[in-house]
């Protein structure tokens, strides 16, 4: 199972990752995916989108998904 993972704003700078393809076999949830990619637990303030729709850390992932992680938003 391959997941396209993206990081935005301060999370991109913290992780040093803009985007990458992740082999996610054995990973069930967004939380698992975050831990596998970053090596640390997900911060509860981190926002997540799956295929450009908001999701939660316990949401499941499927082959081909685009999963984006970003900090609280500050537009407007």
């Amino acid at each position, binding site marked *: 199972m391959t997941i396209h993972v993206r990081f935005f*704003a301060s999370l991109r700078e913290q992780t040093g990752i803009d985007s990458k393809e992740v082999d996610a076999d054995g990973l069930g949830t967004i939380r698992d995916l975050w831990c596998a990619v970053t090596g640390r637990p997900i911060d509860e303030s981190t926002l997540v989108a799956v295929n450009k729709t908001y999701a939660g850390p316990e949401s499941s992932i499927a082959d081909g998904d685009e999963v984006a992680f970003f900090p*609280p*938003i500050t*537009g*407007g």
Partner: protein
Amino acid sequence: MGSVKIELRDTLFLTFRELECFRQKFSRFQDYGACSIFIGTMRDYNEGDRVLSMHLEYYPGMTEQKLAEIVNEARKNYEVLDGLLLHRVGDVQPGEDIVLVAVWSTHRKDAFGACRMIMEELKSTAPFWKKETLAGGDRWVEKNTPGK
């Protein structure tokens, strides 16, 4: 039902010129009894520091999708005859407008309500991130001020 124009702009827009140009295209002028407008502008200070410039990052695809959802949700709650929503992305200078929300309705209750709802939802759910440039370097803005 009229339309709501939504656009991301990577260069300066002249807000009142945009409003006037948009108004020129109205086909149902006699139906409008109210217009509510919100304009958000970049300040040259934040958290006690002088801000020299700002960069607005967004999530291409999701940001546009979310703005459309926000407008659609507002239209379920309020009568919106026409609307205009512009938001800057990229580099912004102090004094430049960042966001424009304009709603035309029959009555002020709907115009005020829809304009506020769109703006508050945008501030809390549309993926944009501000990075400020100060004299001593750059920093990410970590939170928005509450609107209510």
